[in-house]
């Protein structure tokens, strides 16, 4: 089977990549190209659908099927494709504006329906392609072209929003962390149904350094709380513990008794725990959980649809057009 022998090169299209030098999208692209052979699928079975934005150029650079659609609508288009063609592996590439501004409604509905699409949200906390306006993930007070005196909107936490929208799989990773990004893609691919991955992505042109705390070697170990199923949720210096009211909080390791430290469980049916985790990182990135927040089983949307079709067909027999047209109330003339 050829697909088993595919390599990164097989997934690199001939199109020249058009992002600014240093854009985080490059590393995400190259990690994706290296990861795709793992799917064990022939290239023609893989489809990338994007919206509009710098990030949404992504599909052009992968030698699979792909559609660069319109702003914000990729989740809806991908849902239609995934429903119609359950044999395909469908990926959505979107930005923080594409998915959370104009596309917010399609995103939350795709998640609640558990459509079989893997959504990669490139979060650079800015509108890149339109040259730098604040986005729904920009921190309050951000100075941008459209907010010269500081933005006034409270940002979304994409993770919290997804969990509030009944998402069955939610994760966060970082453009520059090849290994973590790869394992997160792997987990999403393995999940049946909708998966949302928030990828912190640096935009050196309009929002440079937005994610330095989770990238700089001198801070990241303190800041990053790597989520691994069954393992304690800790950074090099801090640990996550429960407070009385069901929330989670971060304490210096020194101050906590190891037994109190929360052990990560991504499979809890109730999303509350994952939600609590999502509240740990304010827009200031003091403490940032990365990894799979939630990964629970729920029948994927297209499975349900095709199951229903075959159930009904089994029960009623394959539809007969002639019978349909005639209906029950007919009369003969002549």
């Amino acid at each position, binding site marked *: 089977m050829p697909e088993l022998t595919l390599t990164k090169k097989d997934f690199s*299209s001939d*199109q020249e990549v058009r992002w600014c030098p240093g854009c985080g999208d490059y590393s995400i692209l190259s990690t994706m190209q290296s990861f795709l052979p793992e799917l064990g699928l*022939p*290239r*023609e*079975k*893989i*489809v990338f*659908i994007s919206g*509009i934005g710098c990030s949404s150029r992504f*599909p*052009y650079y*992968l*030698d*699979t*099927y*792909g*559609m*660069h*659609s*319109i702003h914000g*609508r990729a989740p*809806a*288009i*991908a*849902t*239609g*494709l*995934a*429903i*119609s*063609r359950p*044999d*395909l592996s469908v990926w959505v590439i979107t930005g923080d504006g594409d998915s959370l501004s104009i596309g917010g*409604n*399609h995103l939350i*509905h795709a998640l609640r329906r558990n459509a079989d699409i893997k959504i990669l949200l490139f979060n650079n906390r800015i509108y890149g392609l339109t040259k730098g306006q604040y986005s729904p993930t920009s921190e309050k007070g951000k100075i941008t072209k459209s907010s010269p005196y500081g933005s006034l909107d409270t940002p979304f936490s994409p993770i919290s929003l997804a969990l509030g929208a009944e998402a069955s799989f939610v994760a966060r990773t970082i453009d520059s962390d090849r290994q973590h990004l790869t394992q997160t893609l792997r987990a999403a691919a393995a999940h049946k149904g909708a998966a949302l991955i928030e990828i912190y992505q640096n935009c050196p042109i309009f929002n440079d350094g937005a994610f330095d705390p989770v990238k700089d070697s001198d801070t990241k170990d303190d800041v990053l709380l790597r989520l691994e199923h069954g393992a304690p949720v800790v950074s090099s210096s801090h640990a996550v513990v429960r407070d009385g009211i069901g929330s989670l909080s971060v304490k210096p390791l020194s101050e906590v008794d190891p037994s109190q430290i929360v052990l990560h469980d991504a499979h809890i049916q109730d999303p509350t725990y994952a939600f609590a985790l999502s509240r740990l990182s304010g827009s200031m990135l003091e403490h940032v959980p990365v990894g799979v927040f939630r990964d629970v089983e729920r029948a994927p949307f297209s499975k349900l*649809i095709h199951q*229903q*079709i075959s159930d*009904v*067909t089994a029960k*009623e*027999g*394959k*539809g007969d*057009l*002639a019978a*349909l*047209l*005639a*209906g029950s*109330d*007919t*009369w*003969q*003339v*002549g």
Partner: protein
Amino acid sequence: MSKPVVTLDQVVIRFAGDSGDGMQLTGDRFTSDTAMLGNDLRTLPNYPAEIRAPQGTVPGVSSFQLHFGDHHIQTPGDSPDVLVVMNPAALKANIADTPRGATIIVDKDEFTTRNLSKVGYATNPIEDGSLDSYKIHALPLTSMTVGALAHLTLTRKEAERSKNMFALGLLSWMYHRPTTLTEEFLTAKFAKKPEILEANLTAYRAGWNYGETTEDFAVSYEVRPAPMEKGLYRNISGNIALSYGLVAAAEVAGVQLFLGSYPITPASDILHELAKMKSFGVVTFQAEDEIAGVGAALGASYGGALGITTTSGPGIALKSEAIGLGVMLELPLVIIDVQRGGPSTGLPTKTEQSDLLQAMYGRNGESPCVVIAPATPSDCFEVAIEACRIALEYRTPVFLLSDGYIANGSEPWLIPNVDSIPKITVNLATEPNSENGEFLPYLRDPETLARAFAVPGTKGLEHRIGGVEKADKTGAISYDPANHDLMVRTRAAKVAGVKVPDLVVDDPSDMADVLVLGWGSTYGPIWAAVQSLRETGHNVAQAHLRYINPFPKNLGEVLGSYKKVLVPEMNLGQLARMIRGEYLVDVVGFDQVRGMPFTTEQIVNATLEVLSA
């Protein structure tokens, strides 16, 4: 000593009552029984936008008009010969349309002072003589119904609910409708509720017997079957015919039917109907909004399915950006607009033809789409198949413009033989189409200009497409000025080049100076008007456009061969504007925007004006 029978060539009956009185059902039943007798017929349901406006109020009145006869019938009739009113509001709302001399059957039980005052009747019209010029039958419909059901253990309220069946029974007797069908229907409908079934059957028969036995109705009427082409018939509404057409198209094309839709009046019934068709492998996706509906349909089309989206005017407005993507991607997409009164929310349950220019031009950039329209309820079947054929063969979005009138109206339909439906060939690309072994998704069929279409899953033809302007042949992103100009003109040429049959003109005299040209649901009233004008010795030609973009190749010539061209439309002259712009012919527009179909009389008069001008 049975009562005398009078033979009529046609009758128009209107049932009118409270939204809660079941007038639509009553009308449907009478329609089926009438169809069964072999009369030709057309119907016009008319109901309020509210689910149930307050009982007994004029806005709460729901009515159903049926026109049947022993000859070809193409309109629901201008005005009722028989008006059945279940309460004062129904009388108030419908009396204006009812010509003096008409028969009015009234449930006098409902004409209480309270109900009368609700609609501003100071005195009781059935007693104060204001209706003297009508043939009034004021019956205690409600109490008779309740009486007939006394033996059942029903509350009075429950019993009263059957009064529509009493009325149906009475009318069925008056016009010699067969009863078996309706009895079967009721038996099936209330199989699980024996008491209710009993109540309905009893009321229905009581109504019949009342006509048969009492003095109140001296004569009964018969209307002979209409001469119709031999074959098996059924009665069908536009929305159902349309749904069937879509299913049939998918079958003859051998592709999956995928509907992405968001409910909206008066299009929702297509979604409801297709949702029942799981056993045909039909996928219906009720989306979160119109944009997602068309988006999902596009996604499905991209995967090789027949992507359909159904909506009404406001939904088209929302879908327009995504339709533009369909134009750029050159994917099959059928957009069904069941037009209603606009602008904005407008008159959701009323009919109109005012989305034509939106369908033509309501997108950014030069964004050509095919536009076609059905003329009658049953025509929706064929036109739906035609829309799918064009969409699949040319890889283009196609608008199908229906409207509330044909969507809900019904007529007898000669059930087509499924084998007679021509196959649709999609021919997808399965291998490279260039010397160097590359796949060029925008290489075109020289005939149709349709692009090469390879769906995901096709080995070796992996490629990317998108909404940014694309290079000729390769489909790669291109900002080249000359290429953009070429692609814009090519997309226009593709749509302009869609093969459509010539326009057929009906002019038996072959001497007409005046052509009445229509499109969509105005066919019926135009046809009826032209018939009656001819009967009165006028030479008038009629032609009706199914294809609006592109126009039939011979349209210019047809227009040129008449002194005057009258274009009646339920808008402010949208087709007229297109024709003037295209052919510089000074057509005469006849516009009405009343949320109602034209009456035959309106078009007769408008045509007479043109004739005498």
